[in-house]
């Protein structure tokens, strides 16, 4: 079967073309850019909310985009068993839309941070991590000013296995210097209860070709291979 993926563009999205390139050219998955007001979830098998900004991120990052009709479409897609990933600003939008738990606050250092980090896979059962090994370490870059994950329901997230990625050091441990932004419990990514919606601050679309990676890894591809696997197994 051929699967169709949408990348939803908001005013200010700027990682949409990177994601499009990886999906179309690296993964050879039929992928389309769709303006948020025109997005119809019924036409696609999955959706990506890309990184960048949205509506100037006024008030809070992602809050205005969270009121877009695209979010109602995304909500329906999840009910229809279709996977959705929010990357960086896309993650902020999904939390503000309450499709994902928690919130993203300004980095503890108050600085925009752009660097490669190590992620440990905490849940490999989701629509975007099923091709990963549990506990494996991924090289993925971050680039954000508001990525400090916060939740008032940490125990609930742990009990429901909703923590998908944690920031770790080179040894895979949560050391003093492995938390780049002050996230609660080093959380880098979470999922919804059904594990079909995933959000994370790091950018898998920037880590899917060896030429772009300092360690020549292509761990970002695992996200999109997992998505493809999830969709193909579902049908």
């Amino acid at each position: 079967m051929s699967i169709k993926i949408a990348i939803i563009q908001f005013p200010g999205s700027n990682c949409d073309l990177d994601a499009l390139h990886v999906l179309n050219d690296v993964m050879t998955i039929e992928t389309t850019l769709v303006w948020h007001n025109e997005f119809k979830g019924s036409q696609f098998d999955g959706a990506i909310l890309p990184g960048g900004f949205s509506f100037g991120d006024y008030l809070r990052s992602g809050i205005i985009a969270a009121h877009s009709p695209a979010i109602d479409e995304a909500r329906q897609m999840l009910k229809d068993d279709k996977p959705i990933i929010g990357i960086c600003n896309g993650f902020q939008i999904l939390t503000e839309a309450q499709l994902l738990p928690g919130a993203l606050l300004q980095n503890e250092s108050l600085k925009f941070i752009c660097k490669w980090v190590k992620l440990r896979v905490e849940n490999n059962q989701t629509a975007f991590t099923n091709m990963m090994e549990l506990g494996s370490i991924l090289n993925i870059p971050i680039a954000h000013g508001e990525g400090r994950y916060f939740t008032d329901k940490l125990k609930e997230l742990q009990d429901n296995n909703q923590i998908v990625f944690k920031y770790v050091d080179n040894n895979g441990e949560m050391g003093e210097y492995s938390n780049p932004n002050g996230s609660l419990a080093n959380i880098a990514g979470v999922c919804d209860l059904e594990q079909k919606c995933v959000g994370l601050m790091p950018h898998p679309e920037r880590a899917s070709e060896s030429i772009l990676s300092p360690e020549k890894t292509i761990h970002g591809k695992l996200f999109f291979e997992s998505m493809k696997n999830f969709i193909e197994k579902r049908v």
Partner: protein
Amino acid sequence: MTLKSAARDPVADTIQRDLIAKKGFDMVSHVRSGQYLKISLQAEDKDSAEQIIVRMCNILRIYNPITQNLNILKVTEIDQ
């Protein structure tokens, strides 16, 4: 709208540590930062104006109840 006490507030911490305390105002024990919106609207009276604002803030998530507290500081009448 102010950050809840459970969420660390590095903006306020920096203001307190690197400005207030350094410049001798060490009697200041605590600073929290926040966001402030000044809203004008038409309503029957002050009570209904406040009710509309609170309802709007909840429905539109003008504040994020996970991380922020909402406080209505003052409601005043303005003549048309």
